[in-house]
């Protein structure tokens, strides 16, 4: 019999796998750096919780509702901001994330700063496992399809992709929409597991945590997100034994991990510098020059 604590960590690992792999679609495959993923999660968490509490939806419908509302916001923020590139897009998503958090903090219907309590505990291990499998399956199918190749083309070279006839705006919005949908789904699982939600757990630090999972696991590799999510959920718990030094070690581990394997555990290509063998060789030569 597995202890309830381990069960909780396993469930959280599952939920974080959904968050990380959906962010990986946006950041790892499409190359759009997003520091606002927690906003989609919180939109989904609130939407599904309210659907259950106020509208009496069954659990499955609430989850779907959370995902759809988050996807709607993903597209909404996607349309105007997607002409931004690189770090400008990142900061716009960060701003969006903070705006969402502050709005939830002040809205009457979400309980404001007090939060929303009394959400039924519908999330079980079975639900989480099913959701993880569905998420990974759908993302895998997308990536292996024509759409996925278009997304990767956008990441590698947006201008070139456009000149090849790829409607870059459409595909970028698609990536944001799908990514946000799964983040919202995960948010629904989150709120129906903890039975309580409050906006302060969905700040930019949370978005950065998801980003860390993606990069640590390996950009552009779905299995990497699985490993990244599992590692960064488990490490802080393992570090509990080190008491006051816990966060210190956590920070150091991030630095050391990146130093040992900058491309992430499962990563292979060099993001934004081209994936070709030639580029890779070139980067090696440059290092020699510097030394």
């Amino acid at each position, binding site marked *: 019999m597995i202890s309830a604590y381990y069960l909780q960590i396993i469930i959280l690992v599952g939920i974080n796998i959904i968050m990380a792999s959906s962010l990986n679609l946006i*950041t790892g495959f499409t190359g759009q*750096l997003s520091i606002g993923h927690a906003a989609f999660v919180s939109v989904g968490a609130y939407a599904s919780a309210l659907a259950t509490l106020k509208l009496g939806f069954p659990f499955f419908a609430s989850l779907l509702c959370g995902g759809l509302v988050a996807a709607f916001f993903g597209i909404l923020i996607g349309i*105007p*901001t997607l*002409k*931004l*590139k690189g*770090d*400008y897009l*990142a*900061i*716009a998503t*960060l*701003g*969006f994330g*903070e*705006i969402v958090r*502050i*709005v939830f*903090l*002040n809205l009457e219907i979400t309980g404001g700063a007090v939060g929303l309590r009394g959400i039924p505990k519908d999330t079980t291990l079975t639900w989480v496992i099913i959701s993880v499998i569905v998420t990974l399956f759908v993302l895998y199918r997308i990536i292996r399809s024509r759409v996925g190749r278009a997304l990767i083309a956008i990441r590698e070279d947006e201008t070139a992709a456009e000149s090849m006839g790829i409607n870059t705006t459409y595909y970028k919005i698609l990536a944001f929409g799908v990514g946000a949908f799964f983040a919202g789904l995960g948010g629904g699982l989150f709120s129906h597991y903890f039975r309580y939600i409050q906006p302060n757990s969905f700040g*930019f630090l949370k978005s*950065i945590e998801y*980003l*860390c999972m993606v*990069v*640590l696991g390996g*950009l552009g590799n779905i299995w990497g997100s699985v490993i990244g999510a599992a590692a960064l959920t488990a490490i802080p718990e393992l570090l509990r034994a080190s008491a*006051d*030094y816990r*966060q*210190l070690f*956590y*920070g*150091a*581990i*991030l*630095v050391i*991990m*990146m*130093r040992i394997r*900058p*491309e*992430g555990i499962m990563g292979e290509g*060099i*993001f*934004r*510098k081209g994936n070709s063998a030639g580029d890779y060789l070139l*980067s090696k030569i*440059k*290092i020699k*020059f*510097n030394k």
Partner: protein
Amino acid sequence: MFLQQLVNGIVLGSTYALIALGYTMVYGIIELINFAHGEIYMFGAFIGMILVTVYQVPFFIAFFLAMALASLLGITVEYLAYRPLRRSTRLAALISAIGASIFLQNLALLIMGSRPYSFPSPFVSKIYKTSFVTISKVEVIILIVSFLLMLGLTFLIQKTKIGIAMRATAQDKDTASLMGININKVITATFAVGSALGAAAGVMVGIYFRSVTPMMGLMPGLKGFVAAVLGGIGSIPGAMLGGLLLGVAEVMGAAYISSQYRDAVAFMILIVVLLFKPSGLIGSSLQEKV
């Protein structure tokens, strides 16, 4: 009241601008969002506070010592956390920066404890009052010092040899390297100058609000970063403008829209500005990049 709020915004904005300068300089050279910059700002404030209260060092000496020591810290962080990742992806370096930030914040927490420390103001508190605005002596000093530091920085970038090397490196690292510029040296210098400015902001905010805590770098760090992007990341005048604009926007948002939505208003303005100028206010011209 409008004028008073404008003054409030400019004072707040000038501290954001100083923090933003550190971000933007580093970004201009190695395209890295230096997340640990907020922590350098915090360490600067702590060093200043300890020098003044424990070692009784005169304030202005403490101010420069804090800048110097924070430079060393910035250089160390660069050497340990960023240099090994220079040829890898930008996101890997970003995660390393986040790790460094968490590490430094909790290091301060372990050394100093979590309670806020009081940072006694070295200036006699004095208020200048006109019929429209009230401004305190500390605020005037913050404005003057910020202005002088920015002026000094502009001189450094435009006129000195290291400044020219910085600009060359920002434009094209490889060519600059071929021209005999030691890239490592330039990067070290950039971190040193950026961190010193961050520490200066930290000390000034410390005396302004009379307290320092290990957590003080978190929000200003984020705001400084936002200000840098708002102005056009990589651009030095952009960082100054972005900082001031963000400060004024935040204050006006709190005053005329709703104090509950203070930060939301600031971020809203950021997004709107980016929609019309997708690379920040002064971000497009490569020549200005440092």
